[in-house]
């Protein structure tokens, strides 16, 4: 099955299978998971779509280049030092990168995905509470993947 939504669902399955993530802590576009308190490590992943582009391959097929952005969240924990909190985020980001790089086709068995790879990451963002204290730190990891799509032409 082709299309962004199907691909994003496959990526979610890969993230949820990682050691420090689960169906309770990794979602597509559900930021309420951050309020759930369900992660023992205070780590959450929220997937959202990035940009996309298409390019004709043949007269009847196109190659779609999709981006899926994985927001990796780490809750700043009082019982850890600043350095330990930051390292915890780095560990979770690395876990996501390593986990996704193992799959060159996002686990697609339908042979529509041509290629996938972690292409970039963004700056780690600090999220402060109303008192001005650090509450979260979040870094985006971008996974690029492309697939071949053959539209059912109507004309």
């Amino acid at each position, binding site marked *: 099955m082709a299309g962004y939504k199907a691909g994003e669902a496959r990526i979610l399955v890969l993230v949820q299978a990682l050691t420090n993530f689960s169906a309770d802590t990794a979602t597509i576009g559900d930021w309420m998971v951050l309020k*759930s*308190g*369900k*992660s023992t*490590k205070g780590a959450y992943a929220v997937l959202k779509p990035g940009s996309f582009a298409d390019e004709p391959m043949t007269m009847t097929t196109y190659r779609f280049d999709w981006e899926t952005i994985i927001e990796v969240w780490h809750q700043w*924990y009082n*019982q850890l030092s600043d350095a330990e909190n930051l390292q915890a985020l780095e560990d979770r980001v690395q876990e996501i990168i390593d986990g996704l790089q193992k799959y060159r086709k996002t686990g697609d068995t339908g042979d529509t995905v041509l290629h996938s790879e972690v292409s970039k990451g963004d700056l780690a963002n600090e999220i402060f509470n109303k*008192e001005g*204290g650090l509450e979260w730190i979040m870094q985006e990891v971008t996974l690029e993947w492309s697939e071949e799509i053959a539209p059912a032409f109507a004309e």
Partner: protein
Amino acid sequence: MAIRSDSYSSTAEVVAVSRHLLRGQTTFNSTTAPTGTEVIKFIDRASGALNVALRVRGLTTPVTNTTSKLDLDNWVTGKAAEFVELTLRGAGSREKEGTSRFRFLSGLAKDAKAFVEMNSLGWIRLGVTEANRMSDGLAFTGATVQKDRADPDDTTLEQPMFKRGKFDA
């Protein structure tokens, strides 16, 4: 450790609004920050401030009237949840007067007093008893307070047109 018998709210109610700090636990316990014991103390401290304010107003504590107690439970839940939020980091290690953290800690008793003053008449009308009526302080020497007389509602006797305490409830 359980909350005091004269406290309001419960740890479950505080958990419901502070779930994001549970770190995989189902309730606050020894592995969370704040710990379960700390949350219980937050509930007891907020309840203590409220009970003192209730007694200042002359109401019997702890309040057991089920409708009024919902109101009190809600207030304590909110204050305990604020306590919990205060365990998160602030901007620095030194708290200055004027920050909301400082205001909360120093203003708990004042908040309780304002809350009681705002709602006490409603609670009384719902059935919360007064241990000390405000009008008691106006009793004349030698005269029995109207409410303590044996015949305040005896319609066979002539009753006063005015009596002390009419505006209490």
